C-alpha cells in the first residue's frame, strides 16, 4: 500500500514540476534559452525528493548516480532531435531520437554502472 501511495506522490509531484518548468519555458525568449528548461530536472527532483523523505538518502543517491547514464542519453536524444526536426518533423525525429537515447543511455549504463 505504501508503495502505491509513493508512486502516486511521485507522479503528482513529477507532473506538477514538469508543468511549472513548461510555463517558465513558454514565457521565456529567445527559444534557445527557453529550450534549456525542456531538459530541467523536474521529474528527477520530484522523484528523488519523495524517495529521500520516504526511504532516506541511500536509495535516492543510488538512483541519482544511475541518472548520469540517462542524462548522457538525453544529450544524444536532443542532438538527434535537433538535427532531424527540420527535415522530418517532431513525431519521426522523436522516434529516432528515442532510439539514440536507448543506445547512449544503455552504453553509458554498461560503462559506468556495471
Amino acid at each position: 500500500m505504501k508503495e502505491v501511495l509513493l508512486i502516486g506522490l511521485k507522479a503528482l509531484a513529477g507532473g506538477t514540476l514538469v508543468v511549472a518548468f513548461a510555463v517558465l519555458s513558454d514565457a521565456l525568449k529567445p527559444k534557445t534559452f527557453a529550450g534549456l528548461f525542456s531538459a530541467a530536472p523536474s521529474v528527477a527532483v520530484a522523484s528523488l525528493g519523495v524517495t529521500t523523505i520516504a526511504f532516506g538518502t541511500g536509495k535516492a543517491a543510488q538512483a541519482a548516480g544511475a541518472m548520469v547514464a540517462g542524462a548522457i542519453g538525453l544529450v544524444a536524444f536532443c542532438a538527434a532531435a535537433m538535427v532531424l526536426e527540420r527535415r522530418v518533423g517532431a513525431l519521426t525525429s522523436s522516434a529516432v531520437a528515442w532510439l539514440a537515447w536507448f543506445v547512449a543511455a544503455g552504453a553509458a549504463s554498461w560503462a559506468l554502472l556495471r
Partner: protein
Amino acid sequence: MNPLERLGLVVGSPTPRLNLNALKRQGPRDYLMRFAFGAVIAAVAAIAGLGVGDRMGGVLLAFPAILPASLTLIERKEGRRVAAIDAMGAILGSVALIGFAMVASWGLRHWSGVGLAAAALVWVVLASALYVLIVWLPRRRKSPLARARPTSR
C-alpha cells in the same frame, strides 16, 4: 559567423527576457498533456525502481518523455525551425543535467536533503553558464563588428 547562426539555430537577440503574452497562446490542454507525460514517466521510473532496482529507476529519471510533447506542440504552433531551436537549448540543459545527477548522487550521501537542493542549483548555474558561453558571448562579441559600416573608401 557563429556556426549556430549559420545553421539557423540562433536568431534575434540572445539576451533572455520574459514574454508573458506568449502564455496566452497555450491552452489548458497543452499543460494537461505535459502534466500527463511527466506523471507517467515519474510513475514508470518509480515502478522500475521497485521492480528492477534503483539503478534502472535512476536511469529512467532522465528519460525524454516531456521533450517529444514539447517539440510537437512547438512545431504545431511555431514551426519546425523553432522546434529545432528549442532542441538546441535542450542539449545545453541536458549537459547540465549530467552535472545535476553527479552532484545529487554525492550531495545526497554527504549533505542529505540539502544535497538535492545543491544539485538543482548546480543545474541552474551550469545551464546558464553553457548558454552564456555557447550562445550569448559569441553573439555579443560579434555585434560591434556586425554593426560597423565603412565610412569612406
